[in-house]
């Protein structure tokens, strides 16, 4: 492993040479100022970073406790934090001379980001997506199609994110020569968890600078949702050495962590190996992977990045959870108090904020990662709330 016993490179031998090559190339890139400069330039002018740190004034008043800031990665180009990492990995793929990009996607945000940056550099792009997710995230399927990506529907398993990742790995094994696999979260074989964390850490670095500028001190707490865990890791990582900063990551409890229909791997899972890394997994007594469930396609994954597994065991990060219903309530709370429609993923983080913030004093500074916008989830939310569009509020 690379995070105590967690992490590692549990992949087929066919992939090992390439995985090792990715690691060497990434290490060389991190030492190359030109790489960092190109990364920064694209984040600034293409992605639109820095994303704002926004004082959620009305939400803070409504909850009546901690002072709540949103880190607004939902205003990034393409609508989520995913693109930070994609820019980094595609620059690396170019350095390695790869001409084809593949990716898996759940909610479609990582797929859209990958199709976007691949188009930006004229690279061929194939995205694997569960057939069920394709149906529930149709607008993102359209976006990828129009960006020229080849979208491969995956029908195996539950036809969701886990299955898309299986299929992407299978495809990669057959196309090792010219293909780079852009993994969307802090999971997969080493060096992916570390690499994705590094690329996403721009979130936390910006927060650090912004909150010092606004408040003159570090935040007291950070809150983020966690499926694979890249947005949480990106926010937390630059603060992990600050003992006064509490970090909480919010898993998807689906219909409840005791119902069997959830995606809370750190809350209800056990360590195991899947998708190239050792980490907490939802699995049965026989080590078979349990299909996860969440209303949020982006959290609907039975594992979690290995560094989170390590941080859990250390107790450095607290892992909590929120149900579908709590996320929907938080979605509406955010819409009505701040005019922001969060993605269902960060709506889980907000559900925890709504629970935790009122118990804290007014001088407690809390930063929540509003890591994606809700546009992709409109159909799901409208249906879940039983609304009729345009007639709901008469």
């Amino acid at each position, binding site marked *: 492993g690379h995070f105590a016993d967690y992490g590692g490179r549990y992949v087929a*031998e066919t992939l090992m040479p390439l995985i090792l090559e990715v690691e060497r190339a990434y290490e060389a890139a991190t030492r190359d100022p030109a790489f960092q400069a190109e990364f920064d330039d694209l984040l600034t002018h293409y992605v639109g970073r820095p994303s704002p740190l926004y004082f959620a004034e009305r939400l803070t008043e409504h909850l009546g406790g901690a002072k709540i800031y949103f880190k607004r990665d939902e205003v990034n180009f393409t609508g989520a934090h995913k693109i930070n990492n994609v820019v980094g990995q595609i620059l690396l793929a170019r350095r390695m001379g790869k001409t084809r990009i593949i990716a898996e996607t759940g909610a479609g945000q990582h797929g859209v980001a990958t199709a976007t940056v691949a188009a930006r550099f004229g690279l061929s792009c194939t995205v694997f997506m569960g057939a069920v997710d394709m149906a529930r995230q149709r607008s993102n399927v359209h976006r990828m199609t129009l960006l020229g990506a080849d979208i491969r529907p995956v029908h195996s398993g539950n036809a969701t994110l886990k299955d898309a990742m299986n299929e992407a790995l299978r495809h990669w094994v057959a196309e090792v020569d010219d293909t780079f696999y852009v993994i969307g979260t802090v999971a997969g074989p080493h060096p992916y968890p570390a690499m994705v964390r590094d690329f996403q850490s721009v979130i936390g670095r910006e927060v650090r600078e912004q909150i010092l500028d606004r408040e003159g001190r570090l935040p007291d707490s950070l809150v983020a949702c966690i499926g694979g865990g890249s947005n949480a890791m990106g926010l937390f990582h630059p603060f992990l050495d600050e003992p006064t900063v509490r970090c909480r990551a919010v898993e998807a409890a689906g219909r409840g962590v005791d119902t069997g229909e959830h995606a809370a791997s750190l809350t209800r899972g056990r360590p195991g*190996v899947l998708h190239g890394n050792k980490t907490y997994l939802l699995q049965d007594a026989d080590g*078979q992977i349990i299909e996860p469930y969440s209303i949020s396609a982006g959290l609907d994954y039975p594992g979690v990045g290995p560094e989170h597994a390590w941080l859990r065991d250390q107790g450095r990060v607290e892992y909590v959870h929120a149900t579908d219903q709590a996320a929907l309530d938080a979605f509406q709370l955010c819409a009505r108090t701040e005019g922001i429609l969060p993605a269902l993923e960060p709506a889980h983080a907000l559900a925890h904020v709504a629970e935790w913030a009122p118990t804290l004093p007014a001088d407690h500074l809390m930063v929540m990662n509003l890591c994606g916008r809700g546009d992709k989830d409109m159909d799901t939310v409208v249906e879940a709330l039983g609304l009729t569009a345009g007639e709901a509020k008469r």
Partner: protein
Amino acid sequence: MSARLTRRFEALARAGRAGLVTFVTAGDPDYETGLEIVRALPQAGADVIELGMPFTDPMADGPAIQEAGCRALDAGMTLARVLDLAAAFRAGDADTPVVLMGYINPILAMGLETFTARAAAAGVDGLIVVDMPPEEDAPLRRAASAQGLHLIRLATPTTDDDRLVRVLDGASGFLYYVSVAGVTGSKSAAGADIDAAVARLRRQTDLPIAVGFGIRTAEQAGAVARSADAAVVGSAIVNVVKAHLGRPDLVDAVSRFVADLSAGVRAARKEHS
């Protein structure tokens, strides 16, 4: 170490022919039928039996073996039942080596020591764990070794000479050469490429070399058998199972197909000698 594998490859070498390694998923389509299939394999011409341990997320397998695993899991197979099946087979066949093939997670769930001890007790001879590259397999290797089980390493077209040193360091039983970059049951390698690959591997190891992935016909098996010590056939056999699901001639059909493959393997060096 279990001697059955070594003895079997030595016997094949003495006979001047390559062996046929047959893969089936344990308990596909159900425990009883799966056991019948496996029991029939030696008679049909299988020299080594590879038993697939079903896993929900077989990332190195193509659709045929993915589906076989689903059938087995749906029929209630577990890792413990795979070991039961191996033991039941061994009760009736003391000689044919049995190698378990699968993924590490169910093994971790059982525990490395428990699993290897129970596998050895069931008469298993070796293990192939596809998502355990040499970089990660030390704990499993120690546990397997303690129980006399071979941990079989894999080499692939992407394994260059430098890396091959690492793959071979600690390899035992035989070397499994994955002849194409891809998942099981996908494209086939050209015969000449396989000959060249086997020759390259022989320069670095004395282990028997079994070649698999993409071998679907007796002819392809025969082509591999010219240079390799064994040809591994998996997806093609599993496809026969699938084609005969629910039919009374399922076991016979598998046997006939394996007999055909075996004939191809046995004829290989004769044609060319």
